């Protein structure tokens, strides 16, 4: 399993270097390093992230939005190595500005054939990307109820073709 872990790690690292550039720009650089190469299973993992044009510094100095985008790059790198039938993201877009939300949604598009995505959001741009939207309300104080499922017209026709859902 030490070998399995190292193999998985190497693949995630490879994707992360690429995905980070995809989200931040061709001039950006990123890497993943095992702090203790001799003991991969117990070792900490260091993230190296350099936005385009900026000098390399610890990721603690990155902005709130830059840290979120770095997390998005890492998360999608893991999904590439170990796809999951469904992924649930709760307000991942909260710290992102409009252009970063677009970049996040563009990367999301590469995964929707392999996985379903359930995304909790307050952002209108992200909402417009959803195929189906569940609203949740508390008309009665303290009791949650889903309200209405809104399916985009396009999604409805795709669902009928695939015979999924009722």
């Amino acid at each position, binding site marked *: *399993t030490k070998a*399995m872990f190292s*193999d*998985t*790690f190497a693949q995630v690292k490879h994707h992360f270097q690429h995905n980070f550039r995809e989200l931040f720009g061709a001039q950006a650089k990123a890497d993943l390093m095992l702090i203790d190469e001799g003991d991969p299973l*117990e070792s*900490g*993992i260091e*993230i190296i992230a350099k936005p385009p044009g900026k000098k390399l510094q610890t*990721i603690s100095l990155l902005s709130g939005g830059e*840290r979120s985008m*770095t*997390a998005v790059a*890492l*998360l999608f790198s*893991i*999904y590439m*190595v*170990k796809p*999951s*039938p*469904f*992924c*649930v*993201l*709760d307000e*991942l877009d909260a*710290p992102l500005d409009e252009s970063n939300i677009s970049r996040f949604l563009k990367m*999301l598009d590469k995964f*929707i054939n392999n996985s*379903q*995505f*359930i*995304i*909790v*959001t*307050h952002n209108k741009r992200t*909402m417009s*990307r*959803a*195929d*189906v*939207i*569940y609203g*949740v*309300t*508390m008309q009665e*104080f*303290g*009791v*949650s*109820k889903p309200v209405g499922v809104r*399916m985009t017209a396009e*999604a409805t026709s*795709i*669902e009928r073709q*695939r015979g*999924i*859902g*009722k």
Partner: protein
Amino acid sequence: MYLKSLTLLGFKSFADKTHFEFHTGVTGIVGPNGCGKSNVVDAIRWVLGETSAKALRGEEMADVIFNGTDKRKPVGLAEVTLTMADCEQSLGVDYNEVAITRRVFRDGRSEYRMNNTLCRLKDIHELFAGTGVGRAAYSIMAQGQIDMLLSSKPEDRRSVFEEAA
């Protein structure tokens, strides 16, 4: 294999039986602050076998049981059912659909069922091992967990990479 549906009853703010159907592509969950969106995320995490009450923002597991309101009494148990479809090949089972049900009672005791048959949490973990469902910390990103994902501490990101490996 894909996620077909989720049913909540007495789970956190979902006092009444609530059913969500899922489709391919992107499902959005929206609503005002405090309406219950993250509680849906907690329900998915919980039914798949989350053992840490803290990961569900509570102090003990019984905190996920609907606690009542000014107008309603608390209930005695929380129940969530998650149904996967097209399971034959992915899980090596004879059924097309597999429904996982978890219940917890006020005394903190949990019960698990697979297609309505009582089973152990261990059985659920073994069923989903290697599929990315179940203990996949990375496939459920809770609100505000970005710092955890970026942390260099082995204990913080251990669970992420362990399941991936």
